[in-house]
């Protein structure tokens, strides 16, 4: 795969949030305003690019047995770094992201990319992969947050919009799930992703031992 493809795949085709369904915790929790969404997304992108870079550089040095602790230390280092910078320069955003900023450390997108991609690939593809995935995450967060902010609070990036009636439910958790579901469905439609093929009892690993098959005396399809 060319370097450009490594970058592009995170944006839509393998979008971590909307296709991979990773990092749901920040996705649902902080997408109440578009500004929060973009801030969280960019912070995650920074950490993702940094950790992918360092981990792909160190992939030969880190022994297998301490792989995960090393990755987590590196990721946590970058998270603390962005936290300090944000506290120093954008205190407003720092306050509204709150705990979720430190929780980037355990965001499965970052550890996932480190484990699946950066630990097996060269430096440049790893950085591009991190950048693509991070921007994909940022775009989806901003999109979800914009929809929720417009419908729920009648504003966008804090600017008042002429919305007839705001529906508070969109700001609440239930609205978050609703918007996320709709956007996932929409993206799958664009990406022409097929739903998983239903596996019949013939290919099932339980091989006719489960209750559904027992009555019929083993594999049916």
């Amino acid at each position: 795969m060319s370097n450009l493809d490594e970058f592009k795949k995170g944006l839509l085709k393998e979008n971590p949030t909307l296709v991979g369904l990773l990092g749901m915790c920040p996705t649902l929790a902080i997408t109440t305003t578009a500004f929060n969404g973009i801030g969280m997304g960019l912070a995650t992108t920074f950490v993702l690019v940094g950790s992918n870079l360092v981990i792909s550089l160190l992939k030969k040095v880190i022994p297998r047995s301490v792989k995960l602790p090393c990755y987590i230390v590196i990721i946590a280092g970058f998270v603390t770094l962005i936290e300090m910078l944000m506290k120093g320069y954008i205190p407003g955003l720092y306050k509204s992201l709150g705990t979720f900023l430190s929780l980037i450390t355990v965001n499965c997108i970052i550890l996932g990319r480190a484990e699946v991609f950066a630990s097996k690939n060269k430096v440049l593809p790893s950085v591009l992969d991190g950048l693509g995935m991070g921007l994909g995450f940022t775009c989806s967060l901003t999109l979800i947050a914009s929809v929720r902010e417009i419908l729920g609070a009648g504003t966008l990036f804090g600017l008042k919009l002429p919305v007839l009636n705001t529906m508070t439910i969109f700001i609440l958790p239930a609205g978050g799930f609703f918007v996320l579901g709709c956007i996932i469905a929409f993206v799958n439609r664009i990406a022409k992703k097929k739903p998983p093929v239903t596996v019949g009892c013939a290919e099932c690993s339980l091989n006719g031992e489960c209750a559904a098959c027992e009555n019929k005396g083993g594999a049916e399809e």
Partner: protein
Amino acid sequence: MPEKIKAPLVLTLICTIVAALLIFVHKLTYVDTTGVITDELKSGLTEIYGEGKYTMLRSDDGGVLKYDGVDSVIVNEDGKTAFEITSDGYSKDGIHVLIGVGEEGISGISFIALGETPGVGTRIKDDKNFIKQFLGMKEKTTELDALTGATLSSKGMKKAVDTALNAYKEYTNETSKGGKAGE
């Protein structure tokens, strides 16, 4: 090198390097804002009492003067007092307000930061009628017209106001006794 030695060694090295770099960044970015009237506080004070010269009170040991639940006490040249208070709303430490208290009761409330749910909890700031019921309050009351859907934010706001009233009482007691707080 055997794996048994190499693995902990590499992990230790990585931890040390990361920690060292973080110490360096911390030194670069950390700004101590305790005891300083920041721009946000300044604009909040102007909203309550108008332009003027404000000072943050210090206690005898040189630290910032604090009362129960109050982050800092700020007075202007006319001796009017405002209390900076952080209170829990729906989110922890979600309500950060400046409350001006005088002899006539609560004279003004201004929000420094509001970490409550946008559109729901933030109505305690946007709904002017809600804030209005606190103005002029002298004693703690049990009555409160809480906002529908924002009960915790409303309660947090009431708690902040109660804290300010308490602190004002303590403050006036101290100043009338020996007047050491008004330096």
